[in-house]
């Protein structure tokens, strides 16, 4: 299978510096975009490539860029944000991309800036990625600036582009498309009402584009090799390759670049299968905000389109594999603790509902579960899910609903036994 995003990766060694990256063909795509194409043509090739946002929502990238208001009528500067606030539990793909090839990411971001006629970009980095991810980006930026790829009059084009790193300080909601705007502005990162969408009025009221790091990494390859080539990389309906991840009790947890549309079965094979003595029970295919898939769903292509058909989000594509000795109720409790803690508190259903749900799960785990609790959880999930300001609580409820639907027996066992059946010593 063709590797695209990981071609320059050298496991165990520092990532390529500028000279090495250039020798491997790096920055040719930026050169080509600027010298041979208008910004509009770059937007068009990305649109034609069917690249969809790799942060979780899967919005078509080219369409997002095309939604920017026309340059003549809109306020300058236009702001590009690269979202490296990777805080979705179970997700480690963007760190992998940046730590192993920071220049690829930077080149993609620069091409995106050119396509969107933006002169100001920020890389929004979560606090614990300070070392080495943020340091590597700063190094790459300094090298690229020296070489004339960043700064004034990029490659003699007359186009200027500033890129800065913004270090965050740890809060899941900052990765939300509207929350990140408030975070950038130095405000509490609560979400904003849409419309206006950020492309019309984003950070500081300026037209703003927010894309995930992996999305930017795809862009240089699309510019160099074309939309049709990129579409052909996918195995099912979606385009390109994907940095999939596998964690849990598998033999080789890690990141794997595979064609978009790889199935859970194939992904598990890449990871060497389950560890000795453990059986597959379920997987959260794309981080904590995606639903549990059971062993009967292991042949569904992991991509936006195919998963939508079974009402599942694709999310970040990094699968958390759950083994047969892990308690689904306990794991779901862990997820609910996370969501309750990370709720920004802006709207009532999320702020008050998620702690209630967390308490009900704690009761289950600590032997205080009562008949009717599972029904109450289902009702809470239903009434919270469609009534919140942003998608944080939506992410919380998919694991509740899918675990009740697919693993109801484990809940009933907790209530019947008055304890967690998976705990040691019982």
């Amino acid at each position: 299978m063709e590797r695209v995003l990981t071609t320059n990766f050298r496991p165990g060694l520092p990532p390529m510096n500028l000279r090495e990256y250039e020798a491997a063909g790096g920055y040719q795509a930026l050169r080509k975009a600027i010298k041979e194409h208008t910004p509009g043509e770059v937007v068009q090739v990305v649109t034609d490539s069917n690249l969809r946002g790799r942060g979780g929502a899967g919005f078509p990238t080219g369409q997002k860029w095309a939604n920017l208001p026309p340059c003549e009528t809109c306020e300058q500067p236009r702001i590009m944000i690269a979202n490296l606030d990777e805080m979705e539990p179970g997700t480690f793909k963007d760190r992998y991309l940046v730590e192993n090839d920071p220049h690829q990411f930077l080149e993609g971001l620069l091409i995106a800036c050119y396509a969107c006629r933006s002169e100001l970009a920020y890389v929004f980095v979560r606090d614990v990625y300070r070392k080495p991810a943020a340091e590597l980006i700063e190094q790459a930026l300094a090298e690229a600036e020296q070489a004339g790829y960043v700064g004034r009059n990029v490659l003699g084009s007359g186009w200027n582009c500033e890129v800065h790193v913004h270090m965050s300080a740890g809060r899941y909601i900052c990765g939300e498309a509207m929350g990140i705007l408030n975070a950038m502005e130095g405000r509490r990162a609560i979400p904003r009402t849409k419309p206006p969408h950020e492309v019309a009025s984003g950070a500081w009221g300026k037209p703003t584009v927010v894309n995930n790091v992996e999305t930017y990494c795809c862009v240089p390859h699309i510019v160099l090799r074309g939309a049709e080539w990129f579409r052909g990389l996918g195995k099912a309906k979606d385009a390109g390759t994907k940095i999939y991840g596998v964690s849990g009790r598998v033999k080789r947890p890690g990141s794997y670049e595979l064609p978009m549309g790889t199935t859970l079965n194939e992904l598990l094979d890449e990871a060497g299968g389950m560890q000795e003595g453990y059986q597959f029970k379920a997987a959260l295919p794309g981080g904590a905000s995606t639903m549990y898939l059971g062993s009967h769903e292991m042949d569904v292509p992991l991509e936006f389109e195919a998963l939508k058909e079974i009402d599942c989000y694709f999310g970040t594509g990094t699968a958390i594999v759950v083994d047969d000795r892990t308690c689904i109720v306990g794991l779901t409790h862990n997820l609910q603790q996370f969501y309750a803690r990370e709720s920004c508190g802006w709207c009532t259903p999320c702020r008050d509902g998620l702690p209630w749900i967390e308490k009900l799960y704690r009761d289950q785990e600590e032997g205080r579960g009562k008949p009717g609790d599972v029904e109450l959880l289902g009702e809470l999930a239903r009434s919270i899910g469609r009534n919140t300001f942003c998608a944080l609580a939506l992410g919380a409820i998919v694991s509740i609903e899918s675990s009740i639907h697919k693993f109801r027996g484990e809940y009933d066992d907790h209530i019947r036994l008055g304890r967690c059946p998976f705990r040691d010593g019982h």
Partner: protein
Amino acid sequence: MLTDQERQEIEAEVARSFNRRAACVGAMRIVQARRGWVSDEAMGDLAEALTMTADELEGVATFYNLIFRRPVGKHVVKVCDGAVCWMLGGQSLMQHLETQLGIKAGGTTADGLVTLLPICCVGDCDHAPVMVVDDTMVRDLTPEKIDELIANGFEVTG
């Protein structure tokens, strides 16, 4: 009072930010990097330097998990309690640390060496369970590895 060096670093942060307010998280981190935490007095000084009110800045500070408004130990040990670390024994490692250090999560040892905190998934799940000592990831944790860290006073090299 902010030191001259802190002021210089804050102005450099402001220079690469869209406006003064946009530099506020960075500015608090600059003070925290030198002093370990951000005191009420420092908040007042920072607010003035950033042309914000102290309340506005406090609103931002309290929003984030990693802006410390109370003193912390020399080392801040952040134990991942994300889903994957939970599955692979992270919870018992936290308990192990609590027992060995004689403090609860959120606490600081009496000698001021270590503050122990839970942290949400740190994006290192293929090496779970993990924790972050100051800015350095410590991966593939076992109770023995933790005991070694305790024995050498949590000095890790990145």
